[in-house]
């Protein structure tokens, strides 16, 4: 692996060298769109299920056996979505986004990844919100806070590191997805400009290169894998240091 790998485009078969710069950028762009969709939907769904989807039981704590019909549907849908093979999500996005637009795009790829993220973020958010002790909620209510304010200023911030962790988990999970991208962002030999063009992505590149018969491409596929891992690792570290700073510096 050399510096070229990060900054150069692929070269034609037979030539040595070249890189995956376009795929690295492409993956980052795809993940950006995915987080933009998966995080807010998952967060709001999780808040709904944990805070409103259940009637509090006799101890003041929410219990999962007493729940509204809509909450039941949301939870059930989320569980099913979690179990759907990612390639099916790819086909779904192909039909509802790619076909009407008549071409593959970064946007479509990001939407597919975002949909895969939703149930992971949602479940994580719900679980971490449930861990916030009910005494804290009561303390907020007893202070005369409206319920929505208790949730926004006390419950969610208390659970936020956990919510962030589950989001990171979801990012790590979708950053390796290849199947849904074949139908949505497709691939590209060059940098894609904007959000409406097909784009290369690391997983798709790794896939193409690793099944190729050329030793140099195979080497590059390994390199691509390493970069992908490093990328996920980096996102984790960045978000953690951000959270840490935020924790220390408030007043």
């Amino acid at each position: 692996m050399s510096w070229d790998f990060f900054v150069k485009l692929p070269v034609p078969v037979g030539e040595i060298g070249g890189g995956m710069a376009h795929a690295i950028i492409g993956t980052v762009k795809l993940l950006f769109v995915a987080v933009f969709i998966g995080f807010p939907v998952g967060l709001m769904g999780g808040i709904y299920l944990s805070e409103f989807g259940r009637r509090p039981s006799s101890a003041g704590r929410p219990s999962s056996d007493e729940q509204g019909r809509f909450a039941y549907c949301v939870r059930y849908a989320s569980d099913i979505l979690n179990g759907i093979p990612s390639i099916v999500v790819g086909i779904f996005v192909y039909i509802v986004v790619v076909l009407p637009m008549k071409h593959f795009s970064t946007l479509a790829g990001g939407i597919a990844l975002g949909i895969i993220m939703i149930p992971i973020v949602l479940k994580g958010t719900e679980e971490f919100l449930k861990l916030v002790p009910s005494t804290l909620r009561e303390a907020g209510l007893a202070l005369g806070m409206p319920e929505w304010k208790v949730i926004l200023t006390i419950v969610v911030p208390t659970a936020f590191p956990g919510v962030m962790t589950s989001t990171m988990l979801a990012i790590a999970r979708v950053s390796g997805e290849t199947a849904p991208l074949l139908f949505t962002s497709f691939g590209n030999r060059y940098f894609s400009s904007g959000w409406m063009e097909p784009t290369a992505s690391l997983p798709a590149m790794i896939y193409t290169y690793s099944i190729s018969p050329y030793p140099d491409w195979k080497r590059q596929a390994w390199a691509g894998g390493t970069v992908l891992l490093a990328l996920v690792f980096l996102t984790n570290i960045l978000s953690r240091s951000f959270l840490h700073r935020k924790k220390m510096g408030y007043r």
Partner: protein
Amino acid sequence: MKSVLEVKNLSAFFGTNPVLKGVSLSVTAEQVTAIIGPSGCGKSTFLRCVNRMHEVVHGAIVTGDVLLNGESVYGKDVDPVLIRRRVGMVFQKPTPFPTMSIYNNVAVGLRLNGLKKQAVLDEQVEGSLRKVALWDEVKDRLSQPGMSLSGGQQQRLCIARALAVNPEVLLLDEPTSALDPMSSGKIEELLRELKKNYTIVIVTHNMQQAARISDTTGFFLTGELIEFDATKKIFTTPQDARTEDYITGRFG
């Protein structure tokens, strides 16, 4: 003597299960009123009915009425959120908000009431922390998390948080039962000081504590108010045999 709380024939249920049966009493201003009784006798429920926290729980029902300075707490168009701002409450376990600094834990109630000016906030926060004798211990680290304090300090922080908005009555639900004797002693001392300006109702398991700090004591048993009188009378010449049995330790 002015009465701040007037409780009239108050009953509370979880579903069909009664936990409080027709309690009537009145709480005198600038006094400490203690509520004693064995576990499960409705002491905490009684407190939670006063600031409408009882109904937060699903299936909880309240009948009867509570007058807070002459105003019905259970009136038709009374907003429970606004009632809770007029009544301070401190729980058994210290509950500082974990994501907030010491400063913000006290300021949060003030901000809730629309106070925005930094200078006024600073002044009020300092005042509240001084009232609970915490100011000198935390003045150099106001921006640290409220959770960084010891248990006793956390509980005093919670009292400061409740006092910051100048409540008409302060409800304490076993505030010292999770604390060591030293911290408990400090809080008792504090309550004696606070009653000069505030009306306090305290639920306690500790009868010595009730005897030490309260002016009036109510004894609850299985949801009924058995006896309600001056603390001295309750502890020396109780009228009811059950009260006598309880305070002499024959049961409960």
